[in-house]
């Protein structure tokens, strides 16, 4: 029962997110809109689990399964939206002519352009009136955090991994 409850709450969250994304006045950030959509189902699920099972393992299991499914879903939708691999696949599936080159389907300049707009939308960079792009304070913090993470994970310096080994 707790498992079905968790799955149902997740399905309701996905539907609520799809509806939220179709309402123009909500945030454009896909992750934030998902978190907004997940709040109410999460509270209802947790209340129901506690009311039914108290603090027994079923209550925690239901909540953790819900959290896991939500995290997996966020990973998948951000992957489908932003990953180079996913974009290559989607562009190729929309193309009818096998002779068309990938560069004309998915332009490198467009890849950068879209990402700059996305970084602007989440306030990591901004554009001055003279048209110059620079980091915001939040952007500087993000750079520091990722520099620390790169050190922790023992990644090579950015310049040398420009060719990129990542699937994502």
């Amino acid at each position, binding site marked *: 029962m*707790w498992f079905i409850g968790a799955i149902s709450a997740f399905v309701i969250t*996905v539907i609520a*997110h*799809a509806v939220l*994304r179709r309402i123009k006045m909500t945030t454009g950030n*896909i992750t934030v809109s998902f978190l907004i959509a997940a709040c109410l189902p999460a509270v209802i699920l947790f209340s129901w689990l506690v009311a039914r099972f108290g*603090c*027994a*393992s*079923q209550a*925690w299991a239901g909540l*953790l399964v819900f*959290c*896991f499914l939500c*995290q997996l879903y966020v990973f*998948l*939708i951000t992957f*489908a*939206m*932003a990953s*180079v*691999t996913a*974009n*290559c*696949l*989607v562009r*190729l*599936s929309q193309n009818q002519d096998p002779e068309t*080159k*990938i560069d004309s389907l*998915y332009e*490198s*300049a*467009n*890849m*950068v352009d879209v*990402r*700059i707009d996305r*970084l602007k939308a989440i306030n990591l960079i901004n554009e*001055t009136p003279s048209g110059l*792009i*620079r980091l915001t304070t939040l952007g*500087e913090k993000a*750079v520091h955090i*990722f520099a620390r*993470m*790169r050190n922790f*994970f*023992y*990644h*090579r310096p*950015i310049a040398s*991994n*420009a*060719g*990129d*080994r*990542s*699937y*994502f």
Partner: protein
Amino acid sequence: MNLAGAETLTGITYLIFHFCAYAFWLRRKDLFQREIGIFLYHFVSATMFAFVLLSASLIQQVDAAAAVALVATHGIYSISFLELWSLSEGSYSIGILNELASGPARSKAALIDARSQIGSTKKANRLQILSRFGIVIGEEDCWRLTTRGRYLASVLQALNWLTVTKQTG
């Protein structure tokens, strides 16, 4: 709370050990600095963890709910870890932020010009990887999807439809 049973403590201890083994030892090893190594480290661990716990719950050695809770916890931990690992390793957006952090402010056109070549390299790299998995076939710049690739692309398009993601990058 009932979750604090012996099986739960053992499971949580295992997850802490899994992380500590990476943090204090494995991250310095070359294999764990590569995507395949870090992916297998988590995938094999999660699969075996799930197998052991769910088998134990089937023979009623472990409470089924506690077993599922632990498997979900491993899933949350592994996805978070792999996302952070991947983001800090090769994200295109982080690359743009780093470029701005290491130099003066520049125009959008200059930034696009500087990063476009990396975009082309990334595309070529990913398509080569996809062809190794039999998802695309082709040569040079002309690629097409295999049946498996078409199925995968449909899933991605369904996700984009669900989230109304029109402008993909």
